[in-house]
């Protein structure tokens, strides 16, 4: 089947930033994304997540390369200085490019 290249942007971030993140993703043109809570082990130590609001969440968005660029720039400018956050990008392929 014919595949179309996209970028998957993964964001691991403190849960209190959830609203801000959703807004950013929508503004950067992501058509959709998934979020799930994770237990995170960062620079300092394990971060227990008994209370979801104080925990960490992982967000995955598959977007067009141009949107990925914009997203990364916004994250770099607005999020990196303010939140405990890790971002990485990878290449993925989809079947229906019109959905992204």
């Amino acid at each position, binding site marked *: 089947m014919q595949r179309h290249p996209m970028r998957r942007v993964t964001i691991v971030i403190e849960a*209190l930033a959830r609203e801000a993140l959703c807004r*950013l993703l929508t503004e950067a043109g992501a058509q959709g994304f998934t979020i799930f809570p994770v237990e995170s082990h960062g620079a300092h130590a394990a971060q*227990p997540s008994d209370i979801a609001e104080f925990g960490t969440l992982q967000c995955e968005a598959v977007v067009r390369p141009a949107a990925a660029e914009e997203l990364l720039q916004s994250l770099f400018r607005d999020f990196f200085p303010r939140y405990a956050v890790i971002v990485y990008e990878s290449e993925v392929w989809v079947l229906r490019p019109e959905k992204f």
Partner: protein
Amino acid sequence: MDWIEALQANATSPAVLFFALGFAAAVLRSDLKIPDALYVTLTIYLLCAIGLKGGVALSSAPFARLWLPLLAAIALGAAIPLWSYALLRRALGFSQVDAAAIGAHYGSVSAFTFVAASNYLQSIDVPFPGESVALLAVMESPAILVGIWLGRPGADAGRTRVGEIVREALLGRSVLLLLGSLLIGVLAGKRGMAQVEGFFVVPFQGVLCLFLLELGLVAGRRCGDLRHVGPRLLLFGLAAPLAHGALGAWIGTSIGFDVGGATLFGVLAASASYIAAPAAIRQALPDASPTLYLTAALVVTFPFNLAVGIPYVYALARAWGA
């Protein structure tokens, strides 16, 4: 009952002891964990239960009697961040945004400190007006709004929408559940309450124990953050509940509350929010350090109030009310 006795009665209450157990477990790095779902469940249960009880009390009390206390609570909640801000910024050297954020937390209230206080009063057989839960409901938001206003950066950071935040502070989870179940209590009245007593009243004090076990764990795990907090904030976190508690108990007595009511008023003033305020402040003032405000409210002031603040405020209210 004098001070020592008041402290003792508090220190041997199962609720306080379960908090200590959770705290100890976390400090000893036990693998004990409480599922997030349980935490949310307990929160919802406790808020609905106190809301219902307050509503039933309201349904048989003249609502008029509440106007003055409500106004006083709102005013006090809005005023605390003002002087806290000045103090933190001028005397203690915090940045504008951090001072505003911390002030917001201490002006807002901790629902579970309130619950622990009413539990304490009940255990020493001191009556209190059921309607005072309405004070809790109205006192959560004003301080947060004042704090955001104090900390608002000159050049807006783009991601903060003040309208959104105001809406959320007024319609947050806890305010909504409290006001909603208060209203349900008013509508359902004693007859409705009788039906649900087996769930919302009988096991209440035991459920509180489980909840405090969890909060002890959470506070204990964050204990290490005390290092990043510094002696000045530590001092503030201990002095604020003493000062605000006394002020609240005095105002409560002045506006005509009995000893129980004045105690609860004082405890509300003394308490610092560690749920609603952090969520709102992290969004509205992302440049403020959560390590500062969260550690102060959750690791310093909450345990202090639980162990010392509540009996202290009660002793004051009793002295002034007599």
